[in-house]
């Protein structure tokens, strides 16, 4: 195999992306984030730093939140992936998405998909019990607009409804 990113031969992987089975050819060096954004036109997952420092690229991999920029696409063979595009149920928003709008939990909106996926992953982890727990568990997702208190309100208000993760 060539050691430069020009090798046309990829590796075949199968995964389920937002409920749809996909067969994909991926290069071993391609991150899940670049696969989503550059090859699949799923640009809802954001690139804020590409170094796992900001959380804007958070997606759900088998129900767990991961930084897509630190996850190689090739590692996702056989996985179930949910991105922000797969959180709503058709035209009907997920309660957390609705709560983000009601609580004005974003301004520019760039960190928002990561915040929402992160909160869903946090809910799946089932460890948060209090407002302070949520603050700690959501601290991997930066928001430069400073919408933190509204994000907290939206997540706290919705948490009882979302234990168990995104709707199928």
């Amino acid at each position, binding site marked *: 195999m060539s050691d430069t990113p020009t090798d046309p031969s990829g590796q075949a992987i199968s995964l389920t992306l937002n409920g749809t089975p996909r067969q994909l050819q991926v*290069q071993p060096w391609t991150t899940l984030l670049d696969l989503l954004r550059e090859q699949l036109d*799923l640009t809802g997952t954001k690139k804020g730093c590409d170094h796992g*420092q900001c959380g804007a690229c958070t997606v759900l991999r088998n129900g767990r939140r991961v930084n897509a920029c630190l996850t190689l696409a090739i590692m996702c063979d056989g996985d179930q992936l949910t991105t922000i595009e797969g959180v709503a149920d058709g035209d009907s*928003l997920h309660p957390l998405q609705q709560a983000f709008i009601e609580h004005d939990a974003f*301004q520019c*909106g760039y960190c928002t998909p990561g915040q929402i996926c992160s909160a869903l992953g946090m809910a799946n982890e089932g460890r948060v019990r209090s407002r302070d727990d949520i603050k700690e568990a959501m601290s991997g997702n*930066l928001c*430069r607009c400073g919408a*933190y208190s509204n994000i907290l309100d939206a997540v706290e208000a919705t948490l009882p409804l979302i234990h168990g993760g995104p709707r199928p």
Partner: protein
Amino acid sequence: MNTLKPVSGQPMDRVDGPAKVTGQARYAAEYPTTDLLHGSVVSSTIARGRVRHIDCEAALRLPGVVAVLHHQNRPKLAGEDEQYEDADSADGSPFRPLYNDRVLYSGQPLALVVADNLELARHAGTLVRIEYETDAHQTDLLAGQAHPAPAELPKPRGDFQQAYDAAKIRVDATYSTPIEHHNPMEPHASTVIYHPGGNLEVHDKTQGTQNCRDYLHSVFGLPKEKLRVFAAYVGGAFGSGLRPQYQLPLAVMAALQLQRSVRVTLTRQQMFTFGYRPRTVQQLRLAADAQGKLQAIHHAATGQTSRFEDFTEHVVEWSGMLYQCDNVALDYRLVPLDVYTPLDMRAPGAALGLIGLECAMDELAVELGMDPVELRRHNFAESNGNEGKPYSSKALLDCYSQGAERFGWAARNPQPRSMREGHELIGWGMAGGVWEAMQMKASARARLDAHGQLVVSSATTDIGTGTYTVMTQIAADAMGMAPGEVTFLLGDSALPTAPLQGGSFTVSSVGSAVRQACEVLRGKLLMAARSCYPELAGHPAEDMVISEGELHAGRRRYPLGEILPRSGLEAKVVCEPDARRDGYATATHSAVFVEVRVDEELGTVRLGRVVSAIAAGRVINPKMARSQILGGVVWGVSMALHEETLIDHELGRYMNHNLAEYHIPVQADFADIDVLFVDEPDEIVNALGSKGVGEIGIVGVPAAVANAVYHATGKRMREFPLTIDRVLG
């Protein structure tokens, strides 16, 4: 009566909310197109010198690498400074990307690698070898030579020195603030779609699509009609999009040279290679009589700039206008260094100058043994001393009283170190804030179709501030419609002319134009209706609303299809600030109250709570205005406690150019923020009575935090940010 409840003043949800929470909102780097090429920027590693040689051979040898652009093979660029100027230029010679072999700062773009995909472009960029001829550089503000800033400062009034020398109570303190970078979550990016015939469709991260269009027009000599710049969604900007940033000309260069579509996205590290908030050193000298009346104010600031432009902002002016004082002297100097030019960053100037002024006022209160709120009340200014004009409105006293009451300030023991809980010292501090309420010329178009859909447009942007929503509310009310039947378009250079989005003047400027366009359109509609239906002649206009494709007048309904021409009705206006403003000073004000908790052993400063009381005229959307203030508070706390871009002066290079080491607050850093808007009617500022809230939320906060830290610890720290080492040191 057919009346629609006005939506202005209501906490309407963002109209762009669904697009943003579902990932459907596309930002500059997210526009797909066939055969797109990706550009990766190669940055300089020295701070000053010349490029002797660029070796692109290894990069070009990789299949899929299409080109490496640099100063020797780039397309033709303009040769005059004026051709590189833009709507937010500083004095001097604007930076010209890939223009020649000169290296002016570390991180300067020196080459653009263009390849079939992003990873390849980035990899090939690492193979470009640059040989330099290195010159000695200087990047330290304290080591450089200062010269007077080319700014029109208010003339000195009274006699500062005499009044200062004669006064009983004096404060002489010097504060320093660090370099800070905007770091919006979305890195700067430009997607340039090359259409047949050489028309360029550009999606750019900007606060002014027309500013970018005009820049490309003059730098590349392209006709304006071949250029269309869009910014439908902007992932934060905070001033970083006020000038066209270098990824834009680089992407256009490649698109023109290769006649292909090209995208250039900066890395997070490269987000530290253009404008920033400059480092400053500020000396404040205040004098008061024994009763606490200010006798003299001197505010002298020194800020850094580049060697090619003199960046100026309003750092010291606030010290001549926030309080009543007859003897005021202001001074502002710049130190040119081998760095990029600074750039307006949220509340430019004020966020810095009010650190100096409001910390010094706290020190003065301590010297006087006076409550800091009382001291400020005692020196309240009815008029702006710099301009000699009364304020159109100034509900700052209400901010003091309502903010203090909400916070419980009356229970404060003025003695530092008087409150403790476990291992934490608790401190309460406050500060005031001020920002100008500006209005710029702006235009807007409103168009009603026969189905009753209103489309209003202006070439402004929405950087997260809520422009889409607020303009929808203003248009709906002016037209007599429900907001669900109104669409507001922005972020397109082909729309009616709008100023840059910044300075908190978008509601005032664009909102006034939107309102006026809708009023004109409504007038046209009612005139057409009355000529179709004479019985409407006597019907009061205010009783007519438009809903579901019909004009409602009392119980009667008239289909718009019968009234409007087939093509619909349109009105376009150019709206200028009202002459009534001329006799007045216009500004927003705030009073900020902060509780901090300081761990003496660990040196950590934790935020307890914040009350921010704001006077900003009429608030169009309380939900989003509150969000603006919340964001401002986060920024202000961040300035006080976290943010600092550090330079290794030996290398002339930033050391912490990433989001792990450039600290901004996270969710866990934040406590309860209570925002209150005091009532402030204003008939003069503009027809909306609304002053804008983008900047006023930040300005008083850093000083309030620092004053709270002093109250907690008894230690006055004057070097920002107040990091652990300084608290312990």
